């Protein structure tokens, strides 16, 4: 039950992020087209969740720094960051609480992997990989 629940938690947080964070306008002046991607696979030791969505290039650095910071924290550090974030007032523009990435990192135990792939000068494809041990 525990692994199933952890996988479910990550899936829902990832899917909600895909819904909330897609910054490439659906209809834009160029011929660019991008659909969010979501995939789950499994090997002998773990589930692997992969997701892709679009971001404005200017937002990459902040996101990258956030993930790199989360990946340096142990479980106690993540707990303390979670506490600090939940007590802070306000929500972001997309209605999020800023807790989703923390939750994913807590559940993963092996950190978040990510890449940015340029689409054009203004937008990138953000690819996130989260591994969950069986």
């Amino acid at each position, binding site marked *: 039950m525990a692994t199933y629940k952890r996988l479910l938690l990550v899936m829902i947080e990832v899917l909600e992020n895909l819904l909330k964070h897609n910054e490439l306008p659906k209809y834009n002046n160029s011929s660019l087209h991008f659909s969010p991607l979501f995939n789950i696979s499994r090997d002998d030791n773990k589930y692997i969740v992969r997701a892709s969505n679009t971001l404005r290039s200017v937002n990459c650095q902040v996101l990258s720094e956030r993930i790199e910071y989360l990946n340096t924290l142990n479980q106690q550090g993540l707990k303390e960051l979670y*506490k600090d974030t*939940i007590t802070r007032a306000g929500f972001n523009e997309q*209605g*999020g609480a800023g807790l989703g990435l923390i939750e994913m990192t807590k559940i993963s135990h092996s950190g978040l992997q990510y890449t940015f792939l340029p689409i054009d000068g203004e937008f990138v494809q953000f690819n996130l990989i989260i591994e969950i041990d069986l």
Partner: protein
Amino acid sequence: MLPFYAGASEYTPKTELSNHTGIFEFSGVSRPENVSEFYNKLINWIREFEQHCIGTGKWPENGITVNFKLTYCNSASSKYIYQLLEMILGWMKYGIKPVVNWYFDENDDTMRDDGMDIADALDYEFNFLPME
């Protein structure tokens, strides 16, 4: 003043807030499509309840009990739950000592951990109980 009731949906918990008994109960899942729209209704009711009790000088006879019987709660909901409880715990200034019962399936350490994180953030003792 009327109690608040919302039935469970695929995305939102069954929510029963009784101004008569002082029991506030949430059960099911919490991942509303519009989390602020759902929880702001509850926040408004909590505010109205507080004003009603102050105005009449009467709080429920058995105090305030908040029961969480959630099987899943997304991160945005956790933040609103924290805010709701912060408001309710503010009633301690009126001499009320709210009881918070956090129920979880014994095999579900994620829900238990969510409750412990919120309790820790509030610096308040919850009762952690097996889901009935």
